[in-house]
């Protein structure tokens, strides 16, 4: 049994309860024990780093110091914002160790930062540490028939210098994971486009335009549903969908799943425990696609005219 | 790229001996022809002022500087020595300053070991474009040596000019 440090973040206790729950279910079934940081605090996302740089480091720093006390080598974070703040702080501190002294006093001092823990997003942990083979081995109910557009949002893979994971512009890790579950990942050019989440409250019109574009492109790619790894992405794409449909007059009907929900589903866990009822856009239509496999158009084989050696050619 | 220097010795900051009131230190500057000497010329053409204690000797490359030039200088006429060459990678002779850098470090450490303050011999990289930097370097070296006072040990006692 592996043991990792777990930082749920505030949304896991609220809007994205289903993410938190399914993460726990999936990890348990993959034989990974999650050890939650005792007395963790807010990561400071969105407000702290726009107001006070020292504070934006101090809040995650406290969490990192507490996390290191647990003696695990890796910390996994489901929420993309929390992950981003933690990783940014870690990268800055590792590059510039004196920083921890300067900012350590900003909030309650819990000890010295040593830089020994690896900070990963839950997606990165599944992809890198658990691995596709282990995921594939655990699948009991293949999702074959489902076409999914994987949406990564802006924080999971960017900026590359901070995240050091996957391609910043056209990442494929989640695509590979859903394919391991048996589903088909569609070619989705908008997988890292901005959804406008920061303006969710202050300038809803922007959000509707940007999120609408993402939904439109996902629909065009042939997807039955969207897959995300970020609570804010999920709530934006899911919650705003009826509003956007009203505005554009289009019917998208794209449920927005957390990738862990789908993992749990494919691992054969009971549907009602996956909290699909929390979704605004009904999931039934998308789930009904499971098992409906289109026959692949048979490829016409070209008669072999010449020996072609293309492999090494430039 | 740049590693820290190891083996720190205990060095004191107080003057080694009390200087007479009109004392001015003599500092020998050994400069490579292509970067630092050109840089010092630029300091001149830019009319940047610096303390007049330095006496400049031109050599083709910092790698020409044999460590015993420094020892000889301290033994005979100088209160301090500055050696300056091209920045790493800029050596007119490809790799000369890399060899020189190693010798300088060992020489500096050895002199310090036998009782010379580490500021008695100093080194700098000054490019042909760094006129202002040269003036700053000279000002700093002069100030350092003034703080340390005259170097009269081992000096001139048996030396015939």
């Amino acid at each position, binding site marked *: 049994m592996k043991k990792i440090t777990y930082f749920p973040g505030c949304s896991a206790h609220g809007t994205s309860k289903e993410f938190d729950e399914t993460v726990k279910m999936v990890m348990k079934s993959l034989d990974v024990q999650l050890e939650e940081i005792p007395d963790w605090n807010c990561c400071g996302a969105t407000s702290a780093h726009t107001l006070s740089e020292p504070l934006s480091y101090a809040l995650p720093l406290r969490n990192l110091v507490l996390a290191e006390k647990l003696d695990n080598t890796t910390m996994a974070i489901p929420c993309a914002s929390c992950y981003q703040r933690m990783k940014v702080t870690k990268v800055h501190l590792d590059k510039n160790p004196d920083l921890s002294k300067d900012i350590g006093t900003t909030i309650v001092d819990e000890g010295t930062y040593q830089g020994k823990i690896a900070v990963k997003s839950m997606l990165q942990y599944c992809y890198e540490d658990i691995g596709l083979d282990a995921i594939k081995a655990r699948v009991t109910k293949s999702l074959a028939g489902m076409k999914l557009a994987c949406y990564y949002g802006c924080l999971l893979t960017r900026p590359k210098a901070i995240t050091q994971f996957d391609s910043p512009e056209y990442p494929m890790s989640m695509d590979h994971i859903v394919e391991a579950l048996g589903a088909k990942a569609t070619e989705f050019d908008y997988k890292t486009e901005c959804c406008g989440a920061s303006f969710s409250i202050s300038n809803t019109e922007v959000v509707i335009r940007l999120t609408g574009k993402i939904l439109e492109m996902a629909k065009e790619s042939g997807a039955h549903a969207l897959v995300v790894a970020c609570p804010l992405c999920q709530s934006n794409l899911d919650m705003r969908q009826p509003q956007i449909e009203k505005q554009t007059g289009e019917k998208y009907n794209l449920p927005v799943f957390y990738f862990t929900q789908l993992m749990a589903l494919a691992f054969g866990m009971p549907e009602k425990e996956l909290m699909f009822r929390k979704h605004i856009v009904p999931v039934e239509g998308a789930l009904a696609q499971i098992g409906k496999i289109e026959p692949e158009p048979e490829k016409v084989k070209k008669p072999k005219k010449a020996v072609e050696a293309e492999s090494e050619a430039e | 790229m740049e590693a820290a220097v190891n083996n720190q010795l205990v060095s004191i900051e107080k003057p080694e001996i009390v200087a007479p009131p009109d004392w001015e230190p003599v500092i020998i500057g050994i400069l490579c022809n292509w970067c630092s000497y050109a840089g010092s010329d630029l300091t001149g053409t830019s009319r940047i002022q610096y303390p007049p204690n330095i006496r400049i000797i031109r050599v083709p490359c910092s790698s020409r500087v044999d460590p015993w030039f420094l020892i*000889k200088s301290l033994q005979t006429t100088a209160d301090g020595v500055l050696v300056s060459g091209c920045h790493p990678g800029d050596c007119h002779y490809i790799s000369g300053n890399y060899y020189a850098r190693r010798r300088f470090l060992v020489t500096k450490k050895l002199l310090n070991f036998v009782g010379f303050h580490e500021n008695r011999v100093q080194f700098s990289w000054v490019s042909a474009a760094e006129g202002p930097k040269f003036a700053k370097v000279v000002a700093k070296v002069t100030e350092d040596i003034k703080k340390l006072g005259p170097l009269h040990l081992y000096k001139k006692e048996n030396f015939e000019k």
Partner: protein
Amino acid sequence: MDYTNQIREIASKLFAEGKIDVFVGYRMTGFDENQVPALIRDPNEVSKLVFTDKSVFNLTNYLKQDHTRNKRIGMVVKGCDSRALNLLLTESQVKRENLHIVGIPCKGVVDENGNKMQNCIECIFPNPVVFDEMVDGTPTGSEAPPYQVNTDIQNIAAMDLVERRAYFEEVFESCIRCNACRHSCPMCYCAKCCIDQETSTLYHGANTTSSAFHALMTWSLHLAGRCVDCRNCEKACPSHLPLHLLHKWNEQVIYENFQEHLAGVHEGDRGAFYKYSMKDPDDFIM
């Protein structure tokens, strides 16, 4: 540590096989318990050879004038001696093919008072790094232990600047400029030493503190990265100067700042001053 019998056997064998013209080892002085180098040319004199923990001198000093050019030489070497030999080979001073090297798995030699020499206590290469045969069979060599900081050096480095200067002032004052250190050093093989050159303006004045300062400083810089710490110089010095301090200090500076191996451990390694790395320390330079 007594290899007298083995060495006599090996020397006899080498003479019998016609492999060597001269064998260089140790013999008793004849008047006390100490030993001196012995150059054996006559196979019948092999019985003069001895080897005990009083075999202190580094015999590679006898190779300096490139005697291997026209003689085949058998020689006894300890760990430190072999490193000197390695450097002489690297610096093209001797011909390997004319040498037959008898290696000693050294357990340390003693000073006049019978105490183990300090450099032997701190030695990390007791076994020869180059040899043709070992008296005790090939050593089952394990990895060299980590570099040890010399205790004398630590004591001096802990003094403050004024104390250090006073200490060394006394050292330089005591030097009588006899050049015994140079003559006894296996690495000082120059055809004409810089000290002796008329055109050289290296040394002004004769036997003064100032000139001793200059001579010893220059000498130790010429040996920086090349001194194998055999302490021939100290043994030869009539003023009993702690000459090893300068060499050990340089060795330590070089080891810690350039991560260079000790002198002569690898054949072909000329020492720290004859190569460089882009990563060498740079922060002492303005």
